[in-house]
């Protein structure tokens, strides 16, 4: 703001001096030139009248020759003064408009507006660098959960698109190179409210620069990075980047899980899906020979996971030398039938279109289905603007790097326990996953489950703390009871209990809750509200514990004090 005022004042110096001089000379001239009053006596204008006259003349209002009609000498001077003052005003106003239109000035205006709104944030916020598919998803999801974020993006068009989106929270955005320390600092890197820096631009190198700059300028700050190559991943990890998301590895891992344990895949898919997304019917991919088109970062990750699961892949790649494709790779793009025949598409069970070109990927899928309509199709979709085409192509599994990155980071931020749970769940066997899936399916309608975290403490579960202090321990089963109907259970499943440094998977209903416990639940939409009600409302919790509706007023409590069966009162 200060900069802005200084720039404005400095640029207005010359125009203002011109205006002052024009007024001074015109006024002085009118005072000096002899005039005549209505009786024909000599009369001279004084400064007051002269200034009054020049004021309305200069602003082209023109009340006329006041107080007495002018002499010819006065008219001559007025003619000159008229042009001088009007031109001086035009010059001054023109200079001001030029300044306002000036690109540098407008940049400064938007920059100072941005820094002001970042400084005005008085709650934790996330600094998102890069507004690609992942960035947009992340900002949208954070805003939907009431979490503030600040965006740096190089492309003004993407920022404009974000402003047009109907977000419930204002997200300040700056058009700048996120890899410079100055823009990161302006976006609140050093602010005590900055919760984490999230580097999800398209370029690994820029993400790396952002991570290292943030780690050097605020070592305590959490840094979450997107990396597409293992090289960059290792580099980021070397200086303590807190979390690195590789969308290709994440997808390949999930894809392998589909073969290994479909139930486990479902658990992952449900818990990490974005709110209100429709629950998709799961189709297990067939085991057999797969054709993989494109051996880039995506292809390599998928091929590695598939070979780990013992599934044979035939690779089609146009640049065999550049991608270091293994022996037996078929040269070509995979968009032509002849290449696909060469890869023996007739006997394959599935095709993976994993090039970095969306049109080619669609072409591969359609050509392959023409040749063998029973194929299981997997396609990589690089740009979210192609959503409609990929949906129309009826592909079994679509991989969007941006969505995968965005979803992972959203989960990590909003639900840190989920990451723990998924890590522990991965070590369990298929049978465990089957039991969990059947439990979760039992409580669901047609939407995926929501997941939430309950922290046992004064802020979130004051009723539990109060009851525990009064010697009435609360078990997990009680909190999962429907506070409106004691015979019913809330449609939710406890997934994880974190007690100090230990994690307990799927805790039993008779587990007694202790202050400091963190619990992860998943369940039907709405179950969270009822659970939070009974965790916070002492009367509701007491009703669950004892089946007695506890009197809430002091008088009634005193009256009913001696009644049996009301030990909490």
């Amino acid at each position, binding site marked *: 703001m200060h900069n802005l005022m200084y720039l404005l*004042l400095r640029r207005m110096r010359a125009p*203002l001096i011109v205006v002052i*001089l024009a007024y001074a000379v015109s006024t002085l001239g009118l005072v000096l030139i002899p005039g005549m009053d209505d009786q024909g006596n000599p009369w001279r204008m004084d400064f007051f009248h002269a200034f009054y006259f020049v004021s309305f003349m200069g602003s082209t209002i023109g009340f006329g020759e006041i107080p007495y009609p002018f002499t010819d000498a006065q008219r001559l001077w007025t003619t000159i003064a008229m042009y001088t003052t009007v031109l001086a005003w035009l010059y001054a106003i023109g200079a001001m408009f030029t300044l306002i239109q000036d690109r540098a000035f407008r940049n400064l205006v938007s920059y100072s507006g941005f820094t002001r709104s970042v400084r005005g944030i008085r709650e934790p916020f996330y600094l998102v660098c890069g507004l690609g598919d992942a960035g947009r998803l992340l900002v949208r999801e954070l805003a939907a959960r009431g979490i503030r974020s600040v965006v740096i993006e190089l492309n003004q068009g993407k920022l404009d698109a974000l402003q047009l989106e109907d977000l419930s929270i204002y997200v300040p955005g700056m058009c700048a190179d996120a890899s410079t320390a100055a823009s990161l600092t302006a976006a609140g890197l050093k602010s005590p409210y900055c919760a984490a820096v999230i580097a999800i631009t398209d370029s690994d190198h820029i993400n790396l620069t952002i991570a290292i700059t943030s780690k050097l300028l605020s070592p305590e700050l959490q840094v979450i990075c997107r990396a597409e190559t293992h090289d960059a991943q290792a580099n980021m990890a070397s200086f303590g980047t807190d979390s690195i998301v590789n969308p290709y590895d994440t997808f390949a891992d999930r894809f392998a899980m589909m073969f290994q344990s479909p139930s486990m895949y479902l658990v992952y898919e449900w818990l990490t899906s974005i709110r209100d997304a429709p629950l998709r019917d799961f189709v297990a991919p067939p085991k057999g020979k797969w054709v993989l088109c494109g051996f880039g970062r995506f292809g390599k990750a998928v091929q590695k996971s598939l070979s780990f699961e013992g599934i044979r892949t035939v690779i089609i790649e146009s640049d065999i030398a550049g991608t270091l494709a293994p022996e037996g790779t078929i040269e070509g793009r995979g968009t032509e039938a002849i290449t696909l025949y060469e890869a023996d598409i007739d006997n394959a069970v599935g095709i993976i279109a994993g090039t970095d070109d969306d049109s080619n990927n669609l072409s591969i899928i359609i050509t392959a289905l023409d040749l063998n309509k029973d194929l299981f199709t997997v396609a990589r979709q690089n740009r979210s603007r192609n959503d409609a085409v990929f949906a129309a192509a009826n592909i079994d599994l679509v991989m969007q790097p941006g969505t995968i990155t965005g979803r992972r980071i959203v989960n990590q931020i909003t639900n840190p326990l989920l990451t723990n749970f998924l890590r522990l769940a991965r070590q369990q066997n298929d049978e465990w996953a089957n039991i969990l899936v059947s439990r979760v399916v039992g409580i669901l309608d047609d939407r995926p489950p929501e997941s939430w975290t309950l922290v046992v403490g004064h802020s979130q579960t004051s009723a539990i703390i109060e009851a525990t202090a009064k010697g009435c321990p609360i078990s997990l089963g009680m909190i999962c009871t429907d506070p409106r109907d004691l015979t019913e259970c809330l449609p939710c499943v406890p997934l994880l209990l974190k007690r100090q440094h230990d994690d307990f998977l799927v805790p039993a209903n008779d587990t007694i809750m202790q202050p400091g416990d963190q619990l992860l639940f998943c369940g039907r939409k709405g179950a969270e509200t009822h659970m939070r009600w009974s965790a916070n409302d002492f009367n509701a919790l007491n009703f669950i514990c004892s089946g007695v509706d506890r009197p809430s007023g002091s008088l009634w409590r005193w009256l009913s004090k001696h009644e049996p069966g009301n030990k909490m009162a």
Partner: protein
Amino acid sequence: MNLEKVFFAFFIVLSLTLNFGFFVGELDNPDHHNVYELFAALVVSLIATVMKFGDRAHIGAVLLATSLVADLQLIAAVIVWGIFVYAIDTGLTPMVMASIVSLSGGALLANIISVVILVTETVMFRR
């Protein structure tokens, strides 16, 4: 030689001298105080103020402040003159003249401070 400094010094000193010229004389005697001198002092003082617009240096900011004070005092003097002579029609009585001149005296003080700061700055940056 910095032309901007020359101009500013010129205007700030001219503003002081003009103001001084208006101020000297018997306090309440209208014959001793020329209206043209007051007009010139105000115009020059306004220009000196505008010339310090956008100066980010500390001394520049202080100079802006002192010349703003001078402007304010002079504008007040001019308004008092205008009100008593034209609006209320009391004319330039000794009482009115005394208040106009004492207002310009305040402006004179501000001008002196400006010049002192200017001289100090000049001495400090002598190379």
